[in-house]
C-alpha cells in the first residue's frame, strides 16, 4: 500500500479511494443478496427466468405479493408468528428478569453456568424430547407447545442481557433503598426494574427477533393452523416448487420486522449472541 514514488497529496487520495473501494467490496455481499431478494419479489415470472438476469430493467409487479398473500393463509401465519414471538419473549422476560437480578446481586454463577448449557446444547437435541413429551400430552400443533419451546430461546437471552444491566446499577442505589426501609423484593420491583427499563426493551426486542427467526422448533411442533412464517415459506417450497417470485415476496415480508427491530437493538446484538460469556 505504500505509495512512496507518488507525491504525498496524491498518495493520500489514492489511499482514500482504496479505502472506500474496500468498504464497498465488504458491504457488497450483504447488499447483493438482499437486492436480489427484493428485486425478484417484484419481478414477473418471465423476468425471473431470463438469462442474462434483468438487474433493474423489468416492469415491477405486485403479483408475487398478491399470490403469496392469497395462495396461503398468510395473515394467519403472520398472526401465529406475532403471537408466538410476543408471548415467548414476554414469558422469557417474566422468568428471566428476577433470575438475572438475582445472578447480578448475589453472584449466582452456577445458575448462569447452567444457562450457558442451553447455549451449547444442539437445538435438535431438545426437539426429540420435546416432540415425544408434547405428543404424549397431545399438545403438538398447539400454541402453548410452541411458546414453551421458544422460551428455551428467549429466556437465556433475556438473562444474559439483563445481568449486564443489573450489574451496571451502582450498589449505592440498593443500599439507599434498604436504608429507606425498602424490602428486598420491593427493591427489585420498585428500584431495579424501573431503572433498567431500556435494558428490558432491548432484551425483549432481541428475544422477539430470535423467536421470530426460529425454524427448527416450529418445523416440528407446529401444524397447519399454528405454522409460523419461516415454516410456512419452507412448506411453500415443497408445495409450489420453483415458484420463486412469491417465495421472495414471502422472504421479504418476513424480514421487515426484523430489520426494523435490529435498528433499535443493534448495540446489544453481539452480547445477545455471545450470551455474556466473552468476559
Amino acid at each position, binding site marked *: 500500500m505504500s505509495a512512496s514514488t507518488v507525491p504525498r497529496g496524491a498518495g493520500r487520495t489514492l489511499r482514500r479511494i482504496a*479505502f472506500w473501494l474496500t*468498504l464497498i467490496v465488504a458491504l457488497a*455481499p*450483504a*447488499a447483493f*443478496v*438482499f437486492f436480489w431478494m427484493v428485486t*425478484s419479489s417484484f419481478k414477473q415470472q418471465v423476468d*425471473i427466468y431470463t438469462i*442474462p438476469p434483468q438487474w433493474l430493467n423489468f416492469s415491477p409487479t405486485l403479483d408475487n405479493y398478491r399470490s403469496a398473500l392469497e395462495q396461503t393463509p398468510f395473515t394467519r401465519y403472520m398472526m401465529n408468528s406475532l403471537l408466538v414471538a410476543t408471548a415467548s419473549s414476554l414469558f422469557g*422476560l*417474566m422468568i428471566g428478569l*428476577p*433470575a438475572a*437480578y*438475582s445472578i447480578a*446481586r*448475589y453472584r*449466582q454463577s452456577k*445458575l448462569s453456568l*447452567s444457562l450457558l448449557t*442451553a*447455549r*451449547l*446444547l*444442539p*437445538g*435438535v*437435541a*431438545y426437539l*426429540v*424430547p420435546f416432540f*415425544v*413429551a408434547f405428543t404424549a400430552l397431545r399438545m403438538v400443533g398447539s400454541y402453548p407447545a410452541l411458546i414453551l419451546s421458544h*422460551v428455551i430461546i428467549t*429466556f437465556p437471552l433475556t438473562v444474559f442481557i439483563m445481568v449486564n444491566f443489573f450489574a451496571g446499577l451502582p450498589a449505592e442505589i440498593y443500599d439507599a433503598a434498604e436504608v429507606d426501609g425498602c424490602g428486598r*423484593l420491593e427493591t*427489585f*420491583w420498585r428500584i431495579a*426494574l*424501573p431503572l433498567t427499563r431500556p435494558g428490558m426493551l432491548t432484551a425483549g426486542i432481541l428475544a422477539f427477533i430470535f423467536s421470530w*427467526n426460529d*425454524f*427448527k422448533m416450529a418445523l416440528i411442533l407446529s401444524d397447519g393452523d399454528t405454522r409460523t*412464517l*419461516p*415454516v410456512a*415459506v*419452507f412448506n411453500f*417450497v415443497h408445495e409450489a416448487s420453483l415458484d420463486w417470485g412469491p417465495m*421472495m415476496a*414471502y422472504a421479504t415480508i*418476513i*424480514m421487515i420486522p*426484523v*430489520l426494523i427491530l435490529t435498528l433499535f437493538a*443493534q448495540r446489544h446484538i*453481539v452480547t445477545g449472541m*455471545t450470551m455474556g460469556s*466473552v468476559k
Partner: protein
Amino acid sequence: MSQLTESPPAPPARPAGSGSMPPRRRPLLDWLDRYDRYILPAPAVIVVVAMLAFPIVYTIYLSFHQWSGGLRPPQWIGLDNFTRALTTGQFWGSLWRTAYFVILSVGLQVVIGVGAALLFHRRFPGRGIARTFFMFPMIATPAAVALVWKMMYDPTIGVFNYLVQSIGGPTLLWTSDANLVIPALAIVDTWMWTPLVMLIVLAGLAALPQEPFEAAKVDGAGPIRTFVSVTLPLLRPVLLVAVLFRLIDAIKTFDIIKVITDGGPGQASETLNLYAFKQGLSYLHFGYGSALLVFLTLLVFGVAIVFTHVRARTEEK
C-alpha cells in the same frame, strides 16, 4: 411465588403505594424477603430443570433404547445404538462432512472477519450505518435468507452460475454437485456469520492498549509488520472467543442446510446434526437419533472444553 410470576415488566408499581407505605409489614412479605435470593430465580430454575435437564436426561435414556413411538414402550437395547453408529459409514460420513463444513466456514469467517474489523475500526463518516448494514445477514431470518441463496444457486435460473460463466468460468452446479455442495453451504454460513466475528474482533480492537502500537511506529514497522507482530498477538484472546462461538454454532448448523439442500444431493451435505434430525424426527427412530444427538452434544461440549483450556493457558502467559 405467585407474586413473582404475575409480575410482567409492566410499568413500575402504582404510584399510589409508593412513598406512603406504612412501616407495618406483613409477615409473609418478610419471610419472602429473607429468602429472596432463592425465590427470585425460582421460576428460572424450574424452567431450566424442565426444559434443559429433562431433554438431556431423556435423550440419554432414549439412546439406550429402541423406540419408534406408539403404544409399545421403549425397549432397552444397551449400547446397540452407539455401536451401530460407530460401525456405519453414514455416521462417519456425516462426521467428516461436519468437520469439512465447519473448518471451511469458520476459517473463512475468521480471516474475512478480522479484515473487516480492521476496516471498520477506522473512523469514517457513516460508520455506524455501515456497521448496522454489515451486521444484517446474521440477524435476518435464516430460513428466508436460505431460500434466497437457494434461488441464487439454482442451476437454471441462478444468478451465480451466470456470474461465473460471464467471467469465462465453467458451468457450476453449486448445490446439485456433490463435490461443491459443502463449499457452497460454507459460503452461505460465511455470509451470515462473518459479521459476528467482525463485531467481536472490533470490540477487541477498541480495547487494545496504545503503547505497543506507538513502540512499533518508533521502531519503524510497516502496517503489515505491525499487524503480524503486534495486533494479532494482542487479539489472540478475542480471536479465540470468536472461533469458539463460531465452531460451536457451525457444528450445529441446521436451518440453511435443511432449507437449501436437505442433506442432498444424496447425502453429500448431510452433517451429523442433519443426520440425527432425520433419524430422530423424520424416520422417528427415537433411540438411534438420540444416540447420534449424544455424540453431537459430546462433540460440542468437547470443543467448548478444549477451547476454555486453551484460553485459560493464553491468559496465564
